[in-house]
């Protein structure tokens, strides 16, 4: 062919030439492109940029990294940091929780009742709206809001500062053994505050398989809504087994054991999942360690309050209000001589007793799917309903808590509770389906009904299994 003469190639010829040329390229075409882009970018940058003085990072960062990831200090600093965070959360949340409960439940609730009666509402409408919808919502807010408003900003500050990626870096080896990603340390931590927020936080894991593992196992981190149940039951039933001066130690030990059991299940389930159902999912590891920077205090406070706390709270309220309605209705609608709740408790009793719990607890967990915070008040209300003791509580369908531990305990014992029931309740509180806010969040994050179903059913299946085994062994002795 004459190279100088203009030639008109047909489309076919061009395509053939393209196919021929393509065959001549050795190796992966995409890789050549990436390499070329990097080489070009580096050349341009070198021409346009001067790097004065020392190229490496500021020495402060290096020194801090040496300490925070050192063999000697790395783990103790981490443990101390998180123990402090939890202590601040639990200790700090007590007071505002008390205020909110006082305001919303002790002050506002009777006022609303009087107001509704004054307006001439029929009893069922007052009960439905005030005792059902309002009370459940108020309860969730007063228990949930303060710890989250303390925990999330602290967490975000640490994240902003750049410490949390170092935690992932320190702990990665532990997570790797069970097929998970080091960043799951962060999402699990977040889960101790709130599982829904923990599930959202898994976005930081960019490998699909490890992210699904983190989502499915987040529920094994004992969330804020479940700590009070654990602490109450442990101090009522387990602390009382030993002499008074050891009671605090034993009940605290029991609660920590349950939380550690949750961590154990996180690893166990992650290990099992990565070897079975998640085998075919894509997996890749990378962890960037950004430079430290001073956290922006006000901005962090604002965003963590608005983005994390308020959104989670809003979803919880959206789910808690109808739950309150259902609880009130089930206790007040009657079929024959008994209320719906009583029928359901009778129905669930055989199964509950089989696994060392009872029908009241199971029903409480069904109606309290929207929020773990209302499990204890619901159990108390249902127990009064079943035992018919009139001296406590505020009537059918009205949730309550008792001021004195002794009276709570005697009420529960009247409902047939033993130490076994208490132990199993603690276990079941750890191992049951996530709350509806979390389930909804899992669905939003995974976009898959299948993974949502797995994340919901797996923990409750484990819960039934574990409580059954404990009961079986207990009854042998």
């Amino acid at each position: 062919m004459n190279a100088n003469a203009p030639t008109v190639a047909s489309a076919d010829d061009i395509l053939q030439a393209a196919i021929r040329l393509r065959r001549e390229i050795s190796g992966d075409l995409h890789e050549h492109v990436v390499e070329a882009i990097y080489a070009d970018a580096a050349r341009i940058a070198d021409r346009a940029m001067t790097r004065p003085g020392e190229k490496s990072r500021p020495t402060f960062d290096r020194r801090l990294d040496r300490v925070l990831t050192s063999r000697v200090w790395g783990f103790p600093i981490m443990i101390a940091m998180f123990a402090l965070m939890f202590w601040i959360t639990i200790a700090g949340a007590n007071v505002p929780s008390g205020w909110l409960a006082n305001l919303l439940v002790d002050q506002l609730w009777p006022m609303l009742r009087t107001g509704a009666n004054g307006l001439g509402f029929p009893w069922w409408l007052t009960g439905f709206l005030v005792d059902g919808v309002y009370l459940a919502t108020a309860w969730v807010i007063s228990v949930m809001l303060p710890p989250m408003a303390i925990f999330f900003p602290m967490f975000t500050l640490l994240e902003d500062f750049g410490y949390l990626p170092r935690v992932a870096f320190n702990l990665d080896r532990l997570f790797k053994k069970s097929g998970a990603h080091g960043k799951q340390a962060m999402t699990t931590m977040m889960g101790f505050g709130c599982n829904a927020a923990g599930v959202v936080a898994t976005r930081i894991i960019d490998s699909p398989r490890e992210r699904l593992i983190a989502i499915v196992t987040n529920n094994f981190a004992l969330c804020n809504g479940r700590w009070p149940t654990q602490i109450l039951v442990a101090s009522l039933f387990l602390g009382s087994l030993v002499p008074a001066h050891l009671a605090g130690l034993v009940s605290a030990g029991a609660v920590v054991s349950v939380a550690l059991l949750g961590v154990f299940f996180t690893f166990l389930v992650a290990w099992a999942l990565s070897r079975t159902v998640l085998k075919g999912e894509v997996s890749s590891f990378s962890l960037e360690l950004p430079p430290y920077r001073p956290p922006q205090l006000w901005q962090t406070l604002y965003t963590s309050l608005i983005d994390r706390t308020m959104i989670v709270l809003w979803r919880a309220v959206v789910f808690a209000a109808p739950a309150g309605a259902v609880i009130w209705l089930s206790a007040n609608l009657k079929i024959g001589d008994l209320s719906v709740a009583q029928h359901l408790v009778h129905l669930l009793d055989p199964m509950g007793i089989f696994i060392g719990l009872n029908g009241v607890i199971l029903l409480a967990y069904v109606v309290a799917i929207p929020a773990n915070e209302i499990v204890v008040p619901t159990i108390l209300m249902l127990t009064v309903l079943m035992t018919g003791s009139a001296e406590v509580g505020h009537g059918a369908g009205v949730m309550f808590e008792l001021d004195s531990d002794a009276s709570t305990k005697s009420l529960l014992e009247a409902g047939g509770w033993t130490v076994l029931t208490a132990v199993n309740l603690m276990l079941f509180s750890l191992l049951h389906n996530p709350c509806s806010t979390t389930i909804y969040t899992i669905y939003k994050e995974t976009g898959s009904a299948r993974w949502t179903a797995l994340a919901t059913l797996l923990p409750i299946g484990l819960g039934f299994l574990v409580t059954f085994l404990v009961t079986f062994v207990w009854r042998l002795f």
Partner: protein
Amino acid sequence: MKLWGITLAGLIVSGALVWPRCGVVARWRRARQLTERSQREDVLKHVLKCRANGTQPTLESIAGTLQISTGQAADVLQELESHGLLSYEGEALLLKPAGLEMALHIVRAHRLWESYLAEQTGVSEAEWHRRAERQEHLLTPREADALAAQLGHPRYDPHGDIIPETPGDLVAEKGQPLQAVPANTPVLITHIEDEPETIYAQLCAQGLRPGMRAFVIEKSAQRIRFWADGNEHVLAPVLANNLTVTLLPEYKTEDLAEEEFLSGLRTGQRAKVLGLSPACRGAERRRLLDLGFVAGTAVEVEMVSPAGDPTAYRVRGTVIALRREQSGLIRIATEEAVTA
């Protein structure tokens, strides 16, 4: 009442049995049809592969490959002949154009599916072949084309085989078995035979992949000791027979033996990335490329986790932590000791 019950139960049972498309009978028929079709296609594939490798397919070789009796194999051959896909020329079996096209499509679908599993899923290597053996009969030519486009028209499957194009022909496997190469000669592993499965699984477990550079250290009748991508491997000859290699005249044995990987870099040393090992593929490979682990990039160790793994590296101004399995896949050349 009772009669009604029996009638209803009878209706339900017979409905479940003979319902069009989803009844037991229909399902069983479809499964049988698929098995028969798969057998026909597997025979065509076998004939094509024999042709490419210059061997002669026989009734026995067909029966052996498909794990059926010679009588069944003869039946399948007769059916293929009656469909005009195969013909006999004396004793030799020949593919007719339609048969060739069908066989090429099956090989193409198989190799594309393996590429797909390697690049876009986390399915483990030992399962690729088995899954592709099933999928090759389910993909239509149009689906295979779509898959090829989605994968960026790959030319080689993860075992190093050329993915054929239709129309076209199957290119014979180049190279020689590792065993045939004299000691201390640099070679490139071009192909790892994925049949039989047990042998392939052992080769996978040793971390051997096409694209690795290797040389034989010593050979004996019992075993063959060789160096491949920074590690020494020992294989029985029957295993080594499944590794196909081509010579690398432009390399020296010393270069290969001194090949370094990022996992071997010590604190305070600086190195330049040479490239990624072929064992690193799919999402993992793309991720490392995105992070800047491309030829020419300078790296140094920033810090090591207190648990011993992962290690954080300084790459293009950022600090990236990698696990040991990953850093063992990045080829480097150590530069000079950096004074800390």
